[in-house]
């Protein structure tokens, strides 16, 4: 058995699911810095320009001392505003650094653990599951559950509630048919979205156009055309087909049965927009596109699954996992929780048999290890020379048993 090898923890391979744990706060640090820098650039340019203008104006006598004071007040207000914003960014930076520290400390706990049989590993792995659960809950917008689990397990610093709550607000607004929040988000992340060739903003602009066209009043139609000129037509080279479709939409009423216009008018486009937004959001922050729990489960269910887990005959095995009792725990894949979920995943690949020692065949076709049969006979209070089937409960004489050879 390669069990010893399988129990070893190799950090290079064991922390794959935990990458977003550090990647996300790092991305947020960068984003936070970019916002801070943008604020500084904008406000400092404004103040520097106004200062120069005021100085020049004051020199050549066009600006009165009263106006100089007024301009200085404007500058002061602007700078104080900038300071407030920078302080907020600085606080966020401190918070993110603290979060990174807490997360590294959590990962660091695994440094001293070399095998999965270590009790410390158990505690760590449980916490990992809690993290995966919170991630899953947040991605599905179950924010109350996520918060309550994170608080109950005292791991608020290890999960990204704020990020996902902010995301789910925007997603919700799209599902409620409002583009404003999503457009504001696009504006905040303009450069990065452009760099990753996201079509989110274009899609949102199209939706605005569709809604104006849907309203159909002359005023709205005029607005729609102006909107298209400003936000849609410039993308003619990149999204030629979509731009043409938008133009075509002007000739089709909302109740059209003609494709692609029927789909464009469809309210389901909003759900699609929400998905596009979530995808862009996750990509921008370097988050995996589906919950980490899914990744863990699809690999874990397969690794645990055996052909016996969905077979119609109860097998004899269900190996005793703890020596204190010969009764066994139900296999996790056979257990109600996961059985149906695991139905469609492939079962694990094994190249070697894995069976009990000294197998004996009972007359009814069932096979058990000798030790287990003997132990059970004693516990069941059978007379000597008798054994009992652990699954069916039938009793047999020992001399009716046959040895089984597994090669």
């Amino acid at each position, binding site marked *: 058995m390669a069990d010893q090898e399988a129990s070893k923890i190799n950090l290079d391979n064991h922390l794959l699911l935990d990458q977003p744990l550090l990647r996300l706060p790092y991305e947020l640090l960068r984003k936070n810095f970019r916002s801070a820098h943008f604020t500084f650039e904008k406000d400092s340019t404004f103040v520097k320009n106004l200062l120069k203008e005021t100085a020049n104006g004051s020199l050549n006598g066009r*600006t009165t001392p009263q106006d*100089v004071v007024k301009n200085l007040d404007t500058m002061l207000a602007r700078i104080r505003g900038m300071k407030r914003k920078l302080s907020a960014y600085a606080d966020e930076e401190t918070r993110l650094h603290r979060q990174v520290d807490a997360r590294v400390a959590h990962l660091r706990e695994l440094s001293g653990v070399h095998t999965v049989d270590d009790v410390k590993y158990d505690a760590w792995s449980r916490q990992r599951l809690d993290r995966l659960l919170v991630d899953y809950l947040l991605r599905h917008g179950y924010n109350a559950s996520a918060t309550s689990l994170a608080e109950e397990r005292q791991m608020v610093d290890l999960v990204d509630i704020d990020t996902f709550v902010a995301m789910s607000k925007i997603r919700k607004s799209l599902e409620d048919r409002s583009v404003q929040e999503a457009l504001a988000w696009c504006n905040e992340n303009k450069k990065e979205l452009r760099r990753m060739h996201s079509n989110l903003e274009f899609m949102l602009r199209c939706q605005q156009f569709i809604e104006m066209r849907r309203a159909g009043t002359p005023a709205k139609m005029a607005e729609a055309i102006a909107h298209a000129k400003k936000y849609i037509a410039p993308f003619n080279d990149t999204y030629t087909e979509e731009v043409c479709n938008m133009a075509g939409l002007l000739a089709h009423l909302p109740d059209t049965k003609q494709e692609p216009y029927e789909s464009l008018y469809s309210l389901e486009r909003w759900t699609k927009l929400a998905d596009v937004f979530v995808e862009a959001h996750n990509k921008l922050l370097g988050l995996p596109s589906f919950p980490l*729990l899914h990744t863990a489960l699809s*690999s*874990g269910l397969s690794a645990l699954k055996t052909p016996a887990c969905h077979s119609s005959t109860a097998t004899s095995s269900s190996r005793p996992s703890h020596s204190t009792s010969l009764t066994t725990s139900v*296999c*996790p894949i056979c*257990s109600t929780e996961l059985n149906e979920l695991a139905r469609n995943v492939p079962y694990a*690949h094994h190249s070697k048999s894995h069976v009990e020692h000294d197998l004996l065949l009972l007359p009814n076709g069932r096979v058990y290890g000798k030790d287990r049969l003997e132990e059970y006979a004693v516990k069941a209070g059978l007379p000597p020379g008798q054994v009992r089937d652990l699954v069916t409960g039938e009793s047999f004489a020992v001399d009716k048993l046959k040895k089984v*050879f597994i090669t």
Partner: protein
Amino acid sequence: MVGADTDKHTDPKGLQHELDHINNLPQLSAAVSNVDKIIELLTAARERVAGALDPHTASLTMTKLQNPVKVAFETVNVNLKDASQTNKATGKALDKFFPYKPLPADHDAMADHHPLINRAIAMHLLREGQFSVASTFIDDAQSASPYNIEGTPSDGQDEPMDEDDDDAGVEGEADAEASPPVTASSSSDSHDLSSFQSQELQAKFSEMYRVLQELKLRNLVPAIAWARANSAELEARGSNLEFELSKLQYVWLFKGPAVNGLPDDQQNGRAGAMAYARDNFGRFQSRHLPEIQQLASAVVFAPNITGSPYRSVFSTDGAFSEVASSFTREFCSLLGLSAESPLYIAATAGALALPWLIKYTTATKAKGTEWTTANELAFATPLPERMMYHSIFVCPVAKEQTTEDNPPMMIPCGHVLARETVTKLCKGNRFKCPYCPSEGQLKDARLIIL
């Protein structure tokens, strides 16, 4: 095994060290304090201009103001650059001590099973005793996805469960037992949360936690009551839980008030233990006579039990945690559930198997093979011994695992082969064993259940 970069290793310890250093590098807060300088300059200038209000002072002040403000802005800009360097250092540290390895992202095998995952999570939270989180979750999930109902019928092939519990009259049992048992069969018709009997499951698990809590306080009475109420099922499983608990109770009483802290009366101490044995051990006599005799004989050694041959029987050091874990295992098994949370085991196994999956997908990406299409994974995912729950038989000739359609067969000499292998080996009706000189006939090969 993932990534060929040799000088980069995941090393949280090294990362922590590096970050301790980075935390001392300049951050945005430095810029904030330097903004104050600009405010001071502007405020002073404003006072001067406002105080004099003559064009000459104004233009002079403003001209003089240009350079210091410019310098002050430059300082803030430098602060920002420093902060940006700090960020970059953090990124570098991450790349060095936590090198990025992409996770499989092309295919989400779990994407369509949202309701089933929700149910697994709800059951996990309940079995972990997170009752308030579980109820928040069930509310959240039900209000969020009323349209998400999936109805794949199940075969109902889960462990058969004896349902005629004769537990009437056992204290504290009635409330939990009155509800129908929460087995796969009762919830298999539909897998959404609304059909999922969270109330019953919660009642069951709160009962389990109540009993475990009492066991922690060294009170065996509720556990014994539960075991007695379910003695038929426990016996069918070959579990001795009821006797083990009663035995421990005897030993515990035997130790007397000084050790067990129970009231010093007729029910306690040696006399109490003897009385307990008289009242309770009768029912175990047929199965556990030798052990009962041993317990009774120990009385002779009562003054010096630690120096007697019975000291191991009378040591209670690990006994309580041992019965607590057998209790949990039996309790969950009677519900048709695994003793450890399956979600926990699966997530842990998932983390252990993931590197193999990534290695495989990376290797086959060029060929465009998809890993989920076959019945069986195309690569091995070794798991520790305790995560192997079933016997695995790999036919030594075909090198394939046996399945329901291709079960293991024992041929007359005692060797085991897959049925398809036996059929292929046949010449006419006879075949020769590939592992020993004996020959057999097809009709003599018999199906075995491992």
